[in-house]
């Protein structure tokens, strides 16, 4: 569960075969300092990179307009809450390229300070598809998106208290036996 920066890339200097062309992940890591591939099991084999919140807007914009694989469709923007992590609020963007059918997953994680909401720059102004999903993440996880054109609750009523998909939000159900916690191991 602990995310670590990746180890140094294993590149041998005196290799006969030419090095493979850099992937989009490599290019993102090169362009945007602080980006890395979180060590985590991606069971769907989708290339994944995590960028710093201050770079998310440029990174998405670069992938869409400048990167050679034009990622021209924003498939999904989703949030998740990992209370045990240093940066518990994670937003995941999935992009698709119509020309190559490649997909890329960009992640962005932030911490909340005290009672304040965690803050991530909004990409809704550069990509309208992100408007409602970002509102949903604001509603469900309490992540504030700066410069969002219309940041209101979307699924719960306006006077709703709390953010339902946070892990500390009660479910209102009886706990069930046989819960195997993550620390007990799989």
């Amino acid at each position: 569960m602990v995310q670590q920066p990746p180890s140094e890339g294993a590149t041998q200097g005196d290799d006969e075969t030419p090095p493979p062309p850099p992937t989009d992940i490599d290019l993102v890591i090169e362009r945007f300092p602080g980006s890395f591939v979180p060590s985590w099991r991606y069971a769907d084999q989708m290339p994944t990179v995590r960028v710093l919140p201050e770079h998310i807007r440029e990174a998405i914009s670069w992938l869409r307009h400048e990167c050679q694989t034009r990622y021209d469709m924003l498939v999904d923007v989703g949030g998740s809450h990992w209370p045990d992590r240093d940066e518990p609020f994670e937003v995941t963007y999935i992009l698709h390229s119509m020309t190559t059918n490649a997909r890329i997953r960009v992640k962005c994680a932030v911490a909340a300070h005290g009672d304040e909401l965690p803050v991530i720059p909004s990409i809704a102004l550069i990509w309208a598809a992100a408007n409602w999903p970002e509102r949903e993440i604001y509603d469900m996880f309490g992540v504030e998106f700066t410069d969002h054109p219309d940041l209101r609750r979307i699924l719960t009523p306006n006077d709703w208290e709390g953010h339902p998909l946070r892990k500390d939000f009660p479910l209102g159900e009886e706990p069930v036996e046989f819960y195997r916690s993550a620390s007990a191991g799989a």
Partner: protein
Amino acid sequence: MVMLEETRTESGRMLLNMGPQHPSTHGVLRLMLELEGENVTQCIPDMGYLHTGIEKMCEARNYHQALVLTDRIDYLAPITNNLSYIMACEKLFDVGDKVPERAQVVRVMLSELTRIASHLIWLGTHALDLGAMTVFMYCWREREQILDIMENISGVRMMTSFMRIGGLVADVPDDFAGLVAEFVRIMPRKIDEYETLLSRNPIFIDRTRGVGVITRDGALEYGFSGSCLRASGVEFDVRVNLPYCAYETYDFDVAWSKEGDVYARYMVRMREMRESVRIIDQGAKRLLVLNGAPIRLDDPRITFPKREKIHSSMESLIHHFKLVSEGPVPLPGEAYAAVESPRGEQATYIMSDGSNKPHRVRFRGPSFYNLQVLQHTIAGGLVADVVACIGSIDIVLGEIDR
């Protein structure tokens, strides 16, 4: 949710609530319209009336139990929801490529039957919104036939929950092939019948041609998928571009159109129904060859032991008990799986922390993204076009609100 305090703006424009109980909003969608005479000057969609917290509920259930919730997301196409959830689970358990072929064929056939059933509801209600009452009755007649097939295989008409991680809950009964063959035989002629009523109907054409136009760039800007995206000139279909369940081995065409208006979306869906019939026909032929083949993976981590074994062997009984009570436990990790639902790219994104319950389940509902564009399309149009636009986008509120 915002309340309308006033009925008129300062400039004299009328403020009107459309929904959440309006029949033409296809569920509990509420639109706040600002009108100047018959013209819509502004539209603010408001949803959440059907929010049931399915994603949160999934976090409190094990991987087998959460399946039944997925039926209720897009309640017009339960099979495709099941499928995307099950595919995400299979990736998480690393068995995605080990699902038996017979199960894959049945999955494809059921997905396509669901697609036709869902398109029939769309066609019936969409035509009804535009004043064509007869089509509605015809569509319901054929949909009933599909629901009979669903009832025949699973005992339930709509919320079948027929998929399981690693395969299907049971094999299809013997008369499934006959029912499907009958359906495949009659359906193309029925589609002709609907088309005679609508495709060249001057009233229908007047109401749909050039209405609610969404350009190619607009469609990509707003994250469109499915028939709406294809009607705007983007040839993207998850079944072809990112194949799953061996869709690449079936022979079918992707229906698409350049116009991007309500009529184009109508034509794309009509053609899609014909292609679905073709796929079902091919699936039925494959099923004959695979008669008696396994329908479920045999993996003790995930799948239940056979019923006879439970009755005769203590270990199998314990195994069954553990799988029911605790459920299967994946390694930590995450998986995203997308299918082409009748409305577009329906996807499930599961994150696991290594416990027996998913840490986070996200459902990417295509309607949620498709509906975003509505407020921009109908602003500037007529009130009467609002229902045409909503109908053509084919939304399901269960999927938007989850």
